[in-house]
């Protein structure tokens, strides 16, 4: 299918730049969610990280998607701290490592899946623990299913974003078992997880980047 556009370096860079813009815009909301069941810094953590990633990508110049995303992950690890820094950092590095060149939907699906594996390896969270994993898992499943049935990149990414958002919403009734929110015990129930919410944002941004 030579007509299907592939996920290349410029698209990868657009994705990261779009995440930075989205995080900037959604920072108050992420902060508010993290204030309810965490320590209120998830928004500023991600803003610090993705702002630094923009600078890093400026310095990198044109590159293949793997290099763009690996650089992004490395920057997040170096700049964010907290729980989300290493988790998203490792995730983007894993996605990058799985994308040596421009990628078709199926390859991108596997790369996103590698990102999830990295999050789970480091954070040891199971689905249902009220974390990033609860948005990322359905997103990967949706992306992979769409890709397997011949969806284009925008179609697969939109399905993934929808699934991630649903996954994020579904964290609300859960009791947190990982991260800071777990200290709240039952009091964590009834709040949407900030990390799952930012994951949904990352997938929605991917869909938008690929669509426009």
């Amino acid at each position, binding site marked *: 299918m030579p007509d299907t556009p592939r996920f290349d370096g410029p698209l990868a860079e657009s994705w990261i730049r779009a995440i930075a813009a989205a995080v900037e815009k959604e920072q108050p909301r992420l902060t508010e969610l993290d204030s309810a069941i965490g320590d*209120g810094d998830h928004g500023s953590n991600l803003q610090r990280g993705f702002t630094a990633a923009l600078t890093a990508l400026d310095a990198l110049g044109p590159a293949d998607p793997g290099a763009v995303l690996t650089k992004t992950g490395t920057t997040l690890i170096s700049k964010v701290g907290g729980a989300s820094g290493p988790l998203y950092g490792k995730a983007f590095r894993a996605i990058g490592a799985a994308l040596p060149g421009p990628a078709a939907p199926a390859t991108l699906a596997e790369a996103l899946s590698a990102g999830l594996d990295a999050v789970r390896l480091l954070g040891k969270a199971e689905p249902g623990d009220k974390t990033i994993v609860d948005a990322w898992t359905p997103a990967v499943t949706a992306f992979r299913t769409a890709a397997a049935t011949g969806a284009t990149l925008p179609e697969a990414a939109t399905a993934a974003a929808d699934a991630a958002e649903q996954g994020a919403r579904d964290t609300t009734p859960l009791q947190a078992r990982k991260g800071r929110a777990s200290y709240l*015990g039952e009091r964590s129930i009834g709040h949407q997880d900030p990390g799952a919410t930012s994951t949904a944002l990352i997938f929605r941004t991917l869909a938008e980047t690929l669509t426009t």
Partner: protein
Amino acid sequence: MKKLINTPESVLEDALAGVAAAHPELAVDIPNRVITRAARPAGPKVALISGGGSGHEPLHGGFVGPGMLDAACPGEVFTSPVPDQMLAAAKAVENGAGVVFVVKNYTGDVMNFELAAELAAEEGLEVRTVLVNDDVAVEDSTWTAGRRGTGATVLVEKTAGALAERGAPLDEVAALGERVNAASRSFAIALTAATVPAAGKPGFDLPEDEIEVGVGIHGEPGRRREKLRPARDLAAEVVDTILTDHHLTPGDEVIALLNGLGATPLLELYVVYGEVAARLAERGITVARSLVGNYVTSLDMAGFSLTLTKADTQLLELWDAPVDTPALKRA
């Protein structure tokens, strides 16, 4: 928010400039956010490195010096440091005998130190990690991120630091650190919440007559809220809570750390300590050593934490060993 700062964004950097100016005995790498001893130890020695979010001063930078830490990695306020800091610290102080990371058990700290350990290993350094998780306010179950690391950090850093200073090998220093952590339990009560500069308002709301029982050093919620009671009752409750979890028996000896959370006057800490000592005596526990003051703070939080470490000859001897850091000195 009333704070002695320039801007919320620059707090860490500005404070590090102050640390550098105040302590010629320390070397402060401001861009890399690493504090080390100005004078490197002579022979090979296990390098002890700790770090964590800022706002808990003197932890950890105030414990860098002969007999305690080789380096400290301060993160942003209440935010764990990043792996680059620990890697830079490890490379700066590694001295041919390996590196021990002392890590307080918070998801962010654990993961960032884990990545640092990976990076350090890639650079050929031998790294051991000692996890500190002493706060009995959190149940240590699969339902949580595990007990939080608080006051026991001081005990671990002091005793492991003393052992490292004597030239003990890597595994022995790490094992001692783990043993001290296992022998330690802490519990805290807050009268007020801390205000993180970037947030600009207190981390939680506490009515004028209520306290947070079992609070964490970042303002994590405790077991419950209740009315303020006399120091005697609070001290007894804290002692009893720790003893329940700790399984100390009459005749046991402990090192007691009564720690101020930042805004509690020393006068009040001594009032509490008097009651803690009385309660421990009632319960048949002997305080072999004690330390009263601000060691693991939570910015401007008012309140206290108590840490009890079951003592034995080796621990007491290491506790008594000379130390020369900004916040802890012993001849």
